[in-house]
């Protein structure tokens, strides 16, 4: 097989004042932020685009472009391709693997000005929206038509639908509505040479050869810039309930999952796991409250169960039967729990789970490993990692403060977080390749939903065979022979 090397060999050029002069021919002044002449902005204005959500990755871009139309995106890429200027597509910049900020001085192409809904069909539930639409605003847009977005995640207030698609984000509704590979019906993508690939169909069935759009879902901006998304939105459930359960032991999570699935069947919409450390951090940082101190006593972990269905009475009866069964069992799987009694309580219970990410970043510097491993090994992986760090003398106030686990049990996805006082090379060395080897041992995935970004390029072989990686490189070369699209991401 012919081998393509991608990162270093292609020499990219920094953007110059000459390039800016070209961009200002078709972009409005407000669409260009640059430290270069003729209208130099301060470094401060560039800073938010050069730094990722965790504050872990820093780029050195001099220029941010914020096009307002697909045509403008096309013009920008055409020029950058000819001049070999690297381009980093940026959505809400909430990605957790350093994919959305430049590794050097590439141009940041922000999609935030492409933010209009193009159409919505309340009968089919098909929504066509610009890539820069914020996820939460789309949720609000379809709500009056009794639909919801098939995807939901903690970053909903900032992340964009284009970013979600580019990262193939999973999130909290995957158990119910499946992945974006199924719900995305079409895409409009600008290829690196400026070609507009219009695959914005609204067909649910379309077996006409290779399904090219699938390549861009999860490509993390390395193959092209997504400018619009056509997505199938499901009808909004008429009733939602949630309950948080306190479990005496992790060993009960799997039997509980089985019981819950059996009794709730079609109305089960989320089954999320939070270990004790994660719970305590969420509470400490004010991410909602629910259980009293008595309730959490003796709990090793917690499970959040959500139901969504068509008829309140029916759902509540099912849920209440299940809870009664759980509490009255001879050897109960749960200690106690709280069932939300109002929407305010419903969101406060969700805040506990969704707020863990934020709580960890408030507590310290986060090393995040978003892995797929067998459900039964969740606790073992967290505990072993903690012990591993202890054995290296790194578990103390000035190094690693907490090792915690939470995640989507229903999807076999564990978020293993290491919360440290500061990012230190010795912590990094202790964690990698240790964790990747553990994952590989379980034949798991080193990135269940956050992607590869800049963080895990070197670790790709732990989850993908040499043959797969070789093919991925070929595909990259077909779309982006000049290597300008999000260089240094996904593939080394």
């Amino acid at each position, binding site marked *: 097989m012919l081998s393509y090397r991608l990162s270093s060999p292609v020499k990219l050029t920094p953007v110059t004042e000459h390039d800016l002069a070209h961009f200002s021919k078709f972009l*409005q*002044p*407000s669409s260009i932020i640059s430290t270069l002449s003729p209208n130099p902005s301060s470094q401060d204005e560039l800073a938010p685009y050069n730094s990722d959500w965790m504050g872990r990755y820093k780029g050195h871009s001099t220029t941010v472009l914020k096009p307002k139309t697909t045509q403008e995106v096309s013009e920008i890429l055409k020029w950058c391709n000819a001049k070999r200027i690297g381009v980093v597509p940026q959505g809400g910049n909430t990605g957790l693997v350093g994919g959305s900020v430049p590794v050097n001085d590439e141009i940041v192409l922000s999609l935030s000005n492409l933010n209009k809904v193009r159409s919505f069909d309340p009968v089919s539930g098909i929504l066509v929206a610009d890539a820069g639409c914020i996820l939460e605003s789309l*949720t609000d847009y379809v*709500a*009056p038509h009794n639909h*919801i977005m098939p995807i*939901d995640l903690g970053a909903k207030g900032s992340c964009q639908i284009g970013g979600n698609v580019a990262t193939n984000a999973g999130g909290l509704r995957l158990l119910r509505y499946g992945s974006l590979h199924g719900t995305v019906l079409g895409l409009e993508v600008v290829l690196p040479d400026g070609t507009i690939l219009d695959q914005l169909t609204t067909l649910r069935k379309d077996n006409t050869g290779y399904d090219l759009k699938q390549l861009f879902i999860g490509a993390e901006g390395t193959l092209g810039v997504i400018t619009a998304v056509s997505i199938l939105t499901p009808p*909004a*459930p008429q*009733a*939602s309930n949630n*309950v948080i*359960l306190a479990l005496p032991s992790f060993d009960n999570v799997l039997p509980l999952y089985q019981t819950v699935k059996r009794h709730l069947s079609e109305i089960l919409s989320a089954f999320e796991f939070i270990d004790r450390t994660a719970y305590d951090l969420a509470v400490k940082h004010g991410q909602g*409250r*629910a*259980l*009293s101190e008595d*309730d959490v006593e003796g709990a090793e972990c917690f499970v959040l169960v959500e139901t*969504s269905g068509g008829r*309140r009475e029916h759902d509540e009866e099912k849920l209440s039967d299940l*809870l*009664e069964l*759980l*509490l*009255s069992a001879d050897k109960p799987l*749960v200690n*106690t*729990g*709280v*069932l*939300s*009694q*109002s*929407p*305010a*309580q*419903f*969101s406060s219970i969700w805040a506990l789970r969704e707020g863990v990410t934020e709580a960890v970043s408030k507590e310290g510097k986060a090393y995040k490993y978003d892995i797929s491993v067998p459900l039964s090994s969740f606790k073992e992986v967290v505990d072993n990692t903690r012990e591993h760090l202890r054995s290296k003398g790194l578990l103390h106030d000035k190094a690693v403060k907490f090792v915690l686990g939470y995640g989507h049990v229903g999807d076999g996805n564990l978020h293993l977080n290491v919360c440290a006082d500061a990012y230190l090379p010795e912590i990094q060395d202790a964690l990698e390749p240790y964790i990747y080897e553990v994952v590989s041992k379980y034949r798991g995935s080193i990135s269940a939903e956050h992607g590869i970004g800049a963080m895990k390029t070197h670790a790709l072989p732990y989850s993908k065979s040499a043959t797969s990686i070789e093919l991925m490189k070929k595909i990259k070369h077909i779309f982006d022979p000049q290597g300008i699209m999000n260089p240094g991401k996904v593939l080394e």
Partner: protein
Amino acid sequence: MRPTSARLLNILVPVKSTSDDALEFCRAVDYAVKIRVNPQQTGIDTNVKHSMNPFDEIAVEEAVRLREKLKASVKTIKAVTIGPPKSVDTLRTALAMGADSAIHVEIAESGPSPEPLAVAKTLRAIIEKQNGAATDAKDKIDVVILGKQAIDDDLGVTGQMLAGLLGWSQATFASKVEIDEAKGEATVVREIDGGGEEIKCKLPIVITTDLRLNEPRYASLPNIMKAKKKPIEKLSPADLGIDYTPQLETIKVAEPAKRVGGGKVASVDELVQKLKEAGI
């Protein structure tokens, strides 16, 4: 000198089930439809989930906290609601939070919701019924704790009317409540503009709750299960001799004017130009 015979408190907590889209001060919830005026413009759409009026939740919480503090001196905590059959859910929540028993004055699903004066008269009838039948002073209701207002109609007068009808003390907008059952006195801090006002009143008393009084607990699963077995007495308006025919007529309910979104300008010149265009 402390009176010799210890007094026992019987607390009545009226609760209302309100539609959840009225929860303006709570974080908006994904699935909760935003508040909408009904097409007839006579009220808000009520085809949404109902739960306990947040100020009433605070009232239940305060009653339960009084019991936790005063122990056996709080003899009973009784919740009461006036509403259609499904408002029994709200009573179950109150029972799960710690009330001992409940009364449901049941009205038709489709009927108009009772006005504050009629509610106050209903509560008076319930209190007089219980207190009239009591052979021992220890069985008389002597404290009523209720929300300062319901978040759906925002009328905010039921507590005051009830105190007036009964001739009891009233302490409204409470942010702190202390009861000395032996002396038969309550000390209440009221929320007033720019601060708190501490007042002392004689029992019996009607207290209305403000937001800062406490943070209501979440009902735990075991308590929700126990609540299913607690007694709920069902009464009809006729049993109490009350008529809910409205005395007020709602002429029109309108949504607030839509906020027009702003726009960004790129430069001072553009701003000046825009202002000129707008005639400023």
